[in-house]
Structure formats: structure tokens, C-alpha cells
């Protein structure tokens, strides 16, 4: 079996194992797994409305996944996607609320602002890592909390339009469209999915087709070798964190310009950034993998919302997701089994 095939099969097996084990848990705790999965499927694809919601949910997952995956390819763990996501959200809403511009300028400007905010938020841990070797995991976790509370403060005191949230963004900055919404009988789907798909291409192109991407990957494979080959490791570390933060910022812009159209005070982390870690892991840190992993997560999350209607607690889906992540993380196990299997096949 080729390495490529094994790479492809590992996440698929992880998903299958997660679902099988989830089914066993359902049986043990006295729920009917058939009902549960039918409810899940109905909840995600029951009618076009639900599918529209799935697409809406998938959009930020793709971008958050890309953010984690990009940093990972350069050997960095950007746990701060959540924080970069939140500041990006605020920046996009700020542009959307403050300025009055034609759509063709307004939307790109709002997204650019979100990229800058996310990039800046990731620049700090990148710089600390490059200059002082401070571990980026620690710094990014701290930056998440700073982002959450600073943004809540700004929303509450500077941009509060009553009831702890900002005003609505101008129509010209909105990614929503009547047409898309009517197509899916009134779901909150928006054009952000196109942007997310474009970002997948950008990530793939950047990493695989450019000299800079080669350098970034080289740093990810072996910093010493990259250094010996005359590449600036520090510069690439900072660059990768900033690009990763930009993706996270765009993810925030999707919520600000598409899903909500405003920003409310957050009671806690949204979970998008953390789900991004799982999406990136499952997607094998490749652009295409992230796309499909985000799709799966979106389906599971939206589908799960309807599960209580079938008398099954939706927390079971969280268990299944956790199991999938577990099996991806333990992919070494799956790989060994697959390799054994393929060797036997050769005999």
C-alpha cells in the first residue's frame, strides 16, 4: 500500500472507528443508534434549509482549520486561533459599522481589517518564539484570554448599541444575500463559503507551489537543516504565524459579516478555534483534507441540534467527535494495522 493511500485511509478509519464506538456507547446507555443517526442525517440534510445551515457552519471551520494546519506545517502549534478569530470578528464588524462604502470596497476592506487584526494577534507569539524561544503554545493560550476580555470590553463600552452588542453592519459590508437565503428557504448561509474555498487554494498554492512555501515547509521538517541551507528560520516562523493568524481573522470576519452581522459580548470562547485544531488534525494539515474535515464537523454539529427531537441527547455527537479526534491522534495505531494488512496482501 502506498504511503499516500495510507495517509488517506487513516482519517477515514478514524471516523469509522469513532462512529462505531459512538454507536456502542449509545447502545450501552440505552438509546437507539438508528434513530439517532437518522435524526442526525435529517438535521443536516432534512431539507435545503438545514443544508444551508451546514454550509454556514462549515465556513468558519474551514478557515480555522486552515489556520491551525498552516502553522502546523511549519512546525508551530497555533492554539491561538480562537483569539485571532475573535479579534478578526471585531475588526470586520468595526469596519462594517463605521464606514459607508460601496460593496466592492467595503467587503474586501472589512476582510482585510480582520486579516490584519488576526495577523497582528498571531505576530506577537510568533515574534516571541523567534526572538526569545518562548513556546508558542503558552503564549497563544494567554493571547486567547486577552482577546476574549479585551474584545468584550470594547464591545461593552465603545461599540455598545444596547443589550451588550454592537450595531448592525451596513448592508454594503454584508456577505448575506437574499438570493442564497431564498434558495435555502431562509437559512443563514452566506457568500463566505466561496472565500473559504479560495483560501484553501491559496494555502495549497502558497505551500506547494512557491519558493517561500518550500522554505516554510523546510523549517517545519527540520529547523537546523533549513538554517544550514541558508534559510532564515526566525523570519519564517514569524511569517507562518502571521499567515495563520490571517486565516483565523478571516474566519472571524465570516461570523461578523455573514452569520451574525454584529458582535455580541461573548460569555466564553466560541469553540470555533478549538474545533479548528481538530479539523486540521483530521484533515492531515492539507488544504483539501481540512475542507473535508470541516464539512464533516459542520454536518455533525448542525445535525446534532435536531437529535433531541428523536429523544437522543446531542452530547452524544460531541462524544463521537471526541472519539474521532482521539483516533486521529492515535493514528499511529491505525497506521501499524494498515501496514500489517498491506504486507499480508503482498504475500
Amino acid at each position: 500500500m502506498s504511503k499516500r493511500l495510507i495517509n488517506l485511509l487513516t482519517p477515514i478509519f478514524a471516523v469509522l472507528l469513532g462512529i462505531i464506538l459512538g454507536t456502542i456507547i449509545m447502545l450501552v446507555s440505552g438509546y437507539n443508534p438508528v434513530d439517532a443517526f437518522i435524526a442526525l442525517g435529517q438535521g443536516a440534510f432534512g431539507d435545503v434549509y438545514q443544508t444551508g445551515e451546514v454550509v454556514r457552519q462549515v465556513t468558519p471551520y474551514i478557515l480555522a482549520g486552515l489556520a491551525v494546519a498552516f502553522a502546523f506545517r511549519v512546525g508551530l502549534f497555533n492554539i491561538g486561533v480562537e483569539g485571532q478569530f475573535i479579534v478578526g470578528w471585531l475588526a470586520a464588524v468595526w469596519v462594517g459599522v463605521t464606514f459607508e462604502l460601496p460593496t466592492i470596497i467595503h467587503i474586501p476592506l472589512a476582510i482585510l481589517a480582520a486579516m490584519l487584526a488576526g495577523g497582528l494577534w498571531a505576530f506577537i507569539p510568533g515574534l516571541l518564539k523567534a526572538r526569545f524561544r518562548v513556546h508558542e503554545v503558552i503564549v497563544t493560550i494567554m493571547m486567547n484570554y486577552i482577546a476574549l476580555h479585551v474584545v468584550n470590553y470594547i464591545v461593552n463600552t465603545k461599540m455598545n448599541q444596547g443589550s451588550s452588542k454592537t450595531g448592525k453592519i451596513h448592508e454594503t459590508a454584508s456577505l448575506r444575500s437574499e438570493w442564497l437565503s431564498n434558495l435555502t428557504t431562509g437559512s443563514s448561509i452566506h457568500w463566505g463559503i466561496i472565500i473559504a474555498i479560495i483560501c484553501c487554494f491559496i494555502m495549497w498554492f502558497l505551500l506547494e507551489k512557491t519558493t517561500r512555501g518550500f522554505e516554510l515547509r523546510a523549517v517545519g521538517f527540520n529547523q537546523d537543516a533549513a538554517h544550514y541551507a541558508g534559510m532564515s528560520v526566525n523570519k519564517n516562523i514569524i511569517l507562518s504565524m502571521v499567515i495563520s493568524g490571517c486565516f483565523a481573522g478571516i474566519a472571524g470576519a465570516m461570523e461578523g459579516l455573514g452569520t451574525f452581522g454584529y458582535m455580541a459580548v461573548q460569555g466564553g470562547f466560541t469553540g470555533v478555534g478549538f474545533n479548528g485544531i481538530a479539523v486540521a488534525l483530521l484533515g492531515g494539515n492539507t488544504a483539501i483534507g481540512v475542507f473535508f474535515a470541516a464539512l464533516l464537523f459542520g454536518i455533525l454539529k448542525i445535525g446534532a441540534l435536531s437529535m433531541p427531537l428523536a429523544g437522543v441527547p446531542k452530547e452524544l455527537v460531541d462524544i463521537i467527535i471526541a472519539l474521532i479526534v482521539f483516533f486521529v491522534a492515535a493514528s499511529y495505531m491505525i497506521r501499524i494495522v494498515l501496514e500489517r494488512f498491506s504486507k499480508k496482501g503482498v504475500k
Partner: protein
Amino acid sequence: MKKHKIGMALSLVLAAGTLLGACGKSDDTTKDQAKGGDKEKTTFSVAMVTDVGGVDDKSFNQSAWEGLQGFGKDNGLEKGKGGYDYLQSTSDADYTTNLNTLARQGFNLVYGIGFLMHDAVDGIAKQQPKTNFAIVDDEVKQPNVASVLFKEQEAAFLAGVAAALTTKSNHIGFIGGMEIPVIERFESGFLAGVKAAKPEAKVDVQYSGAFDKAELGQTIASKMYSSGADVVFHAAGATGNGLFKEAGDLKKKDPSREIWAIGVDRDQNDMGPDVVLTSAMKRVDVAVKDLSTKAKDGKFPGGETAIYGLHEDGVGLAPVNSKAPNKDAIDKAVKEWVEKIKSGDVKVPGTRDELKTFSAK
């Protein structure tokens, strides 16, 4: 490479933590399906969407769900489509989806439980003009939306009186959820109650910033108790569960220590029979039942706002714990204040500004 692995492990722990976070809740509510049977066949069906606290938050959402279950039982409805049901939200983004899903399932009346759902209810009510909606804790001006508000300050005032009469250290704590108008009403009423009954007692007010973080509630409670507070009141939904945990733990360690916690929304005595002094009840269940009955009889008050206060039995104080040292004095004082509030002699402040000018006669 070693760093690599540590990072990997850390990130996994984090990812798993957030994913598993939602799994910890017990979900017994789904099991007790109504066995009311078909006393009378009605075509009326009703459902609710919880906010992020979830249906088993031991306070606000749970109270609403109990009201809905009670309504279902009274009318011989069954849990599920065509009867009564609920959906839970895990993030703000889920509100719209959940409300819309229920409207599409053909429920006649759909509740949005909580202030945070204002925009979602507003949007979906326009989209689904044939379904009736109701929002609790906020006002939505639409012909097919009924709004339910409570005078939380009146219940909190009584809780403040009870706290003031119980405290020995003259140090009382208040834990709020998010700083939103609803919780401000609780805070103002509570402070006014303490002031009215014992002006020299001081109240330490802290906000946790969330309604679903029990661990945060416990940290704040721990700080309050260790700094000398002996009665702590919470208006923080599931965050407040940490308060009962902390109070219970302290009591277990040192049974002679006199510490009390005051619950919110429903009678939370079940959270710690030894430490729960009383609860500032906000009868979301009463309002939900009341409104559902009206809607079923074809008298849905669309576009109107119903306000439930002491006078309407929409709020009140739960029975004071029989283990409280001066239960009789508290009961007597509470009764007097109830009379004064009901008769309009005392107007309980609902905002911090009103609190400044409040003086108990």
C-alpha cells in the same frame, strides 16, 4: 523535536477538553417522557430553545422546561413532534437554526428562552409569520411574538432581606452572570434588600461573565467565603452551580461553620439541603405554562409584553431552610416586605441608578 511533542500533547488535551466539555452533563430530562396518555386529542404543540446553559442548568432553562412539561402533562401531550419538546444551543450561532427547525417542524408556539435570543427571535418571527413565538427576558415587537418579562428585583429584594438577617459577619456576596439588564435587576434588588434590612452589612458584587461556567462560579465563591462572607447569592444560571459545590464542600469540611448560599430562578434547595438558605424564584415555569395555555385557547397575546412580578406570583422567595438559625424572624420580615411591595408602598429598584436613590421607609 521534543518541544514538538509537548506542543502536540498540549493541543490535544485542549482540543479534547473543549469537545468533551459539553459531554459532562447528565441528561435525565430526555428520559422522563410524558406518559400522560391521550386524555384529549389536541393539535396544539409547543417547543422551546434553550440558551447555552442547556436544559439541565438547574435554574433558568430547566425552570422553563419544567413549565413546558407541566403544560404537556395537563393537556395530555406527549414529548416529541406534535406535542412538546426542546432543542439546546451550544453557541450563539445555534439560536436561529434551532428556532427555525422547530417552526419548520410545525410547532404552534416556540419559546426563545433568554435575553441572548433577542435578534434570533426577531429575525425568525419575520421569516415564519405563521408560527407564534415567545421570548423570555426581553421584548421583541412583532405581531406574532409575545414577550415575557419578570420583576426579578422583587424576588432578589426578599433574598437580600433574608441574607441580611442571616449574616453574622455582615459580609455578603453576590455572583452575577453576564452584565446584562436582567442580572442588573437581580443585583439592584438584592442590594436594596440588604440595605433595607441591615444597612451596615456590605455586599461584595462580582460578575463571572458567563452563564455556563460552574468552575468559575466556584472560584469566585471560594474567594468570597475565604474573605469573610457567610451568605452568597448567585444570579448566574449554571455558573452558580459552582457556588453550591463550594458551599457544600466547606460545610462538609467543617460542619460547625455557618455559611449559606442563596439560589436563583427555581427553588434550588436540592443543590445542597444544608447550605441553601432560600432561593429568589423567578417562575419561568409559571409564565411558560400560563402563556402556553393562553395560546392553546386561541388567545395568544402577540405583540404584547407580559410582566410577571410578586403581584402575579411570577416571582417570589422559596421557603427558608428550616436549619436556618432565625428562620422565624426571616419569615416574618419577608412577609412584611411582601405586603409592602404588593401594596406599592415600596418600589424595588431595577437598575443601579434607581438603587442610588432608593431608601427603605
